[in-house]
C-alpha cells in the first residue's frame, strides 16, 4: 500500500494502481475516453490529465502508476485548462451531428464536453470526413465521429479474441476498420457498440428507431443461453427496442453475446397473439374459452398415463412449477424439462451444475473441455476462459470437435474413448490435470445428451475424482448447460416420475399411440414431426416447430413479458422482470396453466404470481434466495459403462444465431447467420491468429 494525496485527502491505495484508480478510490471523477477497466491501457485520448506536484507537465492519470507520497490535483485551474485543451482538440474533427446521432443522450463525448469543454469553438477550418466502414450486420459505423480511442480494437483482440479491428494509416488519416471491411466474426462483437464512447460504432438494428430517454428500462435476465446474463431491456410502448448488458462481475461482467443483444427483434415477428385450433388440418383462430375447453375435455378423456409434457429451453421456474403441479394433479409422471434428453440426476445438483462457478474459471489452472464448443454454447464463459488464458499458465484440452475457441487448446481426441482413456490415467493431459492445483473439467450439454450420456458423465466424474479436481473449496467439475430453463427445471424435479416417460419416451409413445396428449411448453427443439397422432397442445410464444405441429395453440408470454425466476448454469437464482406486456391475447404462462387447472376441477393452489412464487420457494427453498449460489454437495453420479467404440461428440449447436424460437424469428439473427455462412463458404477470408 502507498499513500497518495488526492485533492487534499490522503488515501492509501494498492501499490501499482494507476493515479486514475486512486482518484476513483478517493471519489474524484476523472474524465476519460480510451481508458476502460477491462481493457489494456492505451493512454491516447489524454482526457484524464491531472496535475501531479513536482511533475513539470500534466500527467495522463490512466497510465501513470502511483508513487508513495504523490500529491495529485484533479480540480486545479491548470487541470481544467488542460482538459479544455484536450477536449478542444478532440472536437476539432468531431462532427456536430448530435441531433442525428444515435449515441445522442448516452454519449461520453457529449456528456464530457458539457462537463469539461470550454463551450465554444475556435476552429473554423474544414473538419475531416471519413468513409463509413462495413463491420457486418450488427455494428453500424459513422467513422467521421471516431476519436481514435481504440477501445474497439483492444476489445476485439483482448476480450473477444479475434484480431479483426485495427487502426490503419496514421495521424490525420488514421481510421478504424477491419481488414478490407470484412464483417466481424465474434459472437461478442456488438459489445464494441457499448464501448465506443462516441457515435462511431452504433447498433445497426437499433439505428434511428428511438432515443435513449424515451425508453423504459427494465433490469432483467437473459434466456438465450444458460449464462443468465444480466441485461437491461429498453422498451418503448409495447415494443422491446433493444437489450443492453448490465454489470454483474460474477456472471457476464459487462458483456453480452450478440444473440442476447439482438435476438430481441424476434419478439416482434412470428408471434402467437391469440389461441388457435387445428380444424381440417389448418390452424384457425379461436377464443380462449373455446381453446381451453377443448384442452380440458381432451385431458378429461385421456388416461393420465397417456398425457405427457415437455418443457422448452426458455421456461421460467414459475412456469415449470405450475406445470409440475398440474401434471401431478392429473396423475401423470410423463414430464421432462430436457428437450435434448441430456443425462442428469435431478436429486443431485452437482451432476448438472457448473460447480466451479463461472467466475471460478479464473482460478483454474488446467481445463478439460468435453464435447462442447464453448464459443457457440456459452460465448461469455468462453471469454472468461480466454481471460484466464491471457493471464498465463492455463492449459486447455479438448475432447470433441476441434474449434477455434480463441485460445490455445490441445486437441486430445474426438470422442468418449479419449475421455475413458484419460479417466484410466493415460495420456499427457491426465498428468497436466493431476499436477494442476485447480483442475477444471467441463462437460458440454451435448456430451451428456446421448444414449451413453450417463456413462460420459460418470466417466468424467470419475476423472475429476481421480485428478483431485474436488478438494476443499474447489469443485473443478461442471456441466455447461445451454438452456436457460434447464437447471431450474432439474432443481424443481421436472423429470419423469416413477414409470414416467422422458423426452425420447414421450416422442416414441406419441408415435406408437401410447401417449395421446402432449403439452409442449415452448418446446421447439424436439423433432415435432415424430409426435404421431397425439394431440399436441403448444403453450408458447412463436410460430415455430412446436406451433406448426400443434392441435391447440395457447399463446404465452416471452421472457421480456413476464416475471420469472431463472437458475443459470452455475446454480445462481435470478429473477427476470416484465418489460412489456405480451402481444394480443397472449397470457403469462402460469396463468394459462392455472386457468386450465380450474377447468379440470383441480385448481392449482395459487391465484397470483406471488402465491405461485411462495409455493415454488416452499417446494425448492433455494429458489427464493435471489443472486445466491447454493453450493451443491459433491457425490457420486453418472453411470459406469464401456465407452469403447462410442461415436465422437457432436456439437449440439449447429448455428449459434438460431438456437431458439425467438432467435429464429429475428431478422437480425437471420442476417448474422447468413453472414457467417458466407464467411465460412469463403473459407474465412482472414485469420484470427
Amino acid at each position: 500500500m502507498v499513500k497518495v494525496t488526492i485533492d487534499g485527502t490522503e488515501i492509501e491505495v494498492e501499490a501499482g494502481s494507476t493515479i486514475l484508480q486512486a482518484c476513483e478510490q478517493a471519489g474524484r471523477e476523472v474524465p476519460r475516453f480510451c481508458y476502460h477497466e477491462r481493457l489494456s491501457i492505451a493512454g491516447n485520448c489524454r482526457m484524464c490529465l491531472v496535475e501531479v506536484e513536482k511533475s513539470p507537465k500534466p500527467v495522463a492519470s490512466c497510465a501513470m502508476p502511483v508513487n508513495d507520497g504523490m500529491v495529485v490535483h484533479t480540480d486545479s485551474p491548470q487541470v481544467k485548462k488542460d482538459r479544455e485543451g484536450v477536449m478542444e482538440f478532440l472536437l476539432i474533427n468531431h462532427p456536430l451531428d448530435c441531433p442525428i446521432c444515435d449515441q445522442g443522450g448516452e454519449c461520453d463525448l457529449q456528456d464530457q464536453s458539457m462537463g469539461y469543454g470550454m463551450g465554444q469553438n475556435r476552429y473554423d477550418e474544414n473538419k475531416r470526413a471519413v468513409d463509413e466502414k462495413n463491420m457486418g450486420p450488427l455494428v453500424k459505423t459513422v467513422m467521421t465521429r471516431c476519436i481514435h480511442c481504440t477501445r474497439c480494437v483492444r476489445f476485439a483482440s483482448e476480450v473477444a479474441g479475434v484480431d479483426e479491428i485495427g487502426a490503419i494509416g496514421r495521424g490525420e488519416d488514421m481510421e478504424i476498420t477491419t481488414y478490407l471491411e470484412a464483417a466481424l466474426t465474434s459472437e461478442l462483437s456488438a459489445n464494441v457498440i457499448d464501448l465506443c464512447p462516441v457515435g462511431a460504432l452504433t447498433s445497426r438494428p437499433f439505428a434511428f428507431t428511438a432515443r435513449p430517454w424515451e425508453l423504459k428500462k427494465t433490469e432483467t435476465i437473459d434466456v438465450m443461453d444458460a449464462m443468465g446474463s444480466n441485461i437491461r431491456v429498453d422498451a418503448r410502448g409495447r415494443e422491446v427496442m433493444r437489450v443492453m448488458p448490465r454489470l454483474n462481475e460474477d456472471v457476464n461482467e459487462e458483456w453480452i453475446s450478440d444473440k442476447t443483444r439482438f435476438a430481441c427483434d424476434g419478439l416482434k415477428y412470428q408471434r402467437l397473439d391469440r389461441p388457435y385450433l387445428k380444424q381440417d388440418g389448418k390452424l384457425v383462430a379461436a377464443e380462449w374459452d373455446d381453446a381451453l375447453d377443448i384442452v380440458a375435455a381432451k385431458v378429461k378423456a385421456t388416461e393420465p398415463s397417456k398425457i405427457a409434457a415437455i418443457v422448452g429451453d426458455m421456461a421460467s421456474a414459475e412456469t415449470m412449477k405450475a406445470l409440475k403441479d398440474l401434471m401431478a394433479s392429473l396423475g401423470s409422471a410423463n414430464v421432462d424439462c430436457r428437450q435434448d434428453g441430456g443425462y442428469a440426476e435431478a436429486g443431485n445438483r452437482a451432476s448438472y451444475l457448473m460447480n466451479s462457478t463461472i467466475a471460478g474459471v479464473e482460478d483454474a489452472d488446467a481445463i478439460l473441455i468435453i464435447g462442447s464448443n464453448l464459443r457457440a454454447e456459452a460465448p461469455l464463459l468462453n471469454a472468461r476462459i480466454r481471460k484466464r488464458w491471457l493471464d498465463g499458465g492455463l492449459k486447455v484440452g479438448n475432447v470433441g470437435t476441434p474449434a477455434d475457441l480463441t485460445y490455445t487448446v490441445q486437441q486430445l481426441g474426438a470422442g468418449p474413448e479419449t475421455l475413458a482413456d484419460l479417466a484410466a490415467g493415460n495420456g499427457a493431459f491426465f498428468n497436466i490435470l493431476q499436477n494442476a492445483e485447480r483442475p477444471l473439467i467441463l462437460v458440454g450439454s451435448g456430451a451428456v445428451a446421448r444414449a451413453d450420456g450417463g456413462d460420459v458423465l460418470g466417466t468424467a466424474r470419475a476423472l475429476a475424482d481421480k485428478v483431485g479436481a474436488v478438494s476443499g473449496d474447489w469443485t473443478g467439475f461442471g456441466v455447461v448447460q445451454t438452456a436457460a430453463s434447464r437447471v431450474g427445471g432439474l432443481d424443481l424435479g421436472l423429470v419423469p416420475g416413477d414409470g414416467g416417460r422422458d423426452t425420447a419416451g414421450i416422442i416414441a409413445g406419441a408415435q406408437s399411440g401410447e401417449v395421446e396428449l402432449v403439452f409442449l411448453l415452448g418446446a421447439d427443439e424436439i423433432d415435432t414431426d415424430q409426435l404421431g397422432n397425439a394431440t399436441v397442445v403448444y403453450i408458447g410464444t412463436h410460430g415455430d416447430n412446436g406451433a406448426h405441429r400443434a392441435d391447440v395453440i395457447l399463446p404465452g408470454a416471452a421472457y421480456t413479458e413476464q416475471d420469472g425466476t431463472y437458475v443459470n448454469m452455475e446454480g445462481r437464482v435470478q429473477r427476470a422482470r416484465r418489460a412489456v406486456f405480451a402481444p394480443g391475447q397472449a397470457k403469462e404462462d402460469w396463468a394459462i396453466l392455472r386457468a386450465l387447472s380450474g377447468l379440470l376441477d383441480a385448481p392449482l393452489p395459487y391465484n397470483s404470481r406471488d402465491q405461485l412464487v411462495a409455493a415454488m420457494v416452499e417446494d425448492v427453498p433455494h429458489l427464493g434466495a435471489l443472486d445466491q449460489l447454493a453450493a451443491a454437495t459433491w457425490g457420486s453420479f453418472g453411470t459406469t459403462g464401456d465407452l469403447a467404440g462410442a461415436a465422437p461428440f457432436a456439437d449440439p449447436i449447429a448455428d449459434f444465431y438460431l438456437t431458439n424460437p425467438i432467435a429464429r424469428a429475428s431478422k437480425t439473427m437471420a442476417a448474422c447467420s447468413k453472414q457467417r455462412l458466407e464467411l465460412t463458404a469463403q473459407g474465412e477470408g482472414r485469420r484470427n491468429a
Partner: protein
Amino acid sequence: MSVRRLVPGLGPDSFEFTPENQEWAQKQIAKYPAGRQQSAVIPLLDQAQRQMDGWLPEAAVRYVADYLDMPYIRVYEVATFYTMFNLKPVGKVHVQVCGTTPCWLRGAEDLKEVCRRKMGVDKDQGPSEDGTYSWTEMECLGACVNAPMIQVDDETYEDLTVERFEALLDELAKDKSAPKTGPQIDRQFSAPAGGPTVLKKGDA
C-alpha cells in the same frame, strides 16, 4: 502525407517470395526469439515490395501475414502506417520528395513543380504515361542540412536545384546506378559547401 489504403483487386491474386527471398526472410525471423517472429514484419514487407518492383499489392500483405502467423489487420496497419510502403504501382524511378519545413524553405516546392512538369502526373497519381516515373511527397527524410533533397530507392540526392534535379531525373531514367548519390554540389556529406572552413591544414 497522402491517404494510403490497400486497393482490393489491384495487382496479382497471389504472391510468394522467391526462393532467395524465402531464405532471406528466414534469416530475418531468426534474429528474433522464438515466437516473436512478428517482429520481422517490416523487413518482410519491404522485401516483398522490392520483389514487386517497388510496390506492395494486397496479396503480398496477406502473404506476409500468413508467413509470420499474424492477423491480416495487424499487417495492414503496419503497411499503411509507413509511407515507404507503396500500396499502388509506382514507376521505374519512384521519387520521394521531402516536403518538410527545411526542404520547403530551400525550394522543395520547385522540385515538386519539376516532378509535375516532367512526369505529367501529380504526387501519388501513379506512374507517368510511359511508366518511367512516379513521385510522392515525404515527411522529413533527415537530410535537412543539405536541403532540398529527394530519395530514390535506397539513395538520397541532396542540395538540389531545379536544373540539377531535371538532369538527375534523366540520368536516373537511363541508369539508376549512374548518378552520384548524396550532395549534388561540391561538398562532402554535410560538411560546409566549397570545402572545409575550419581545421584546415596549415592555418594557424
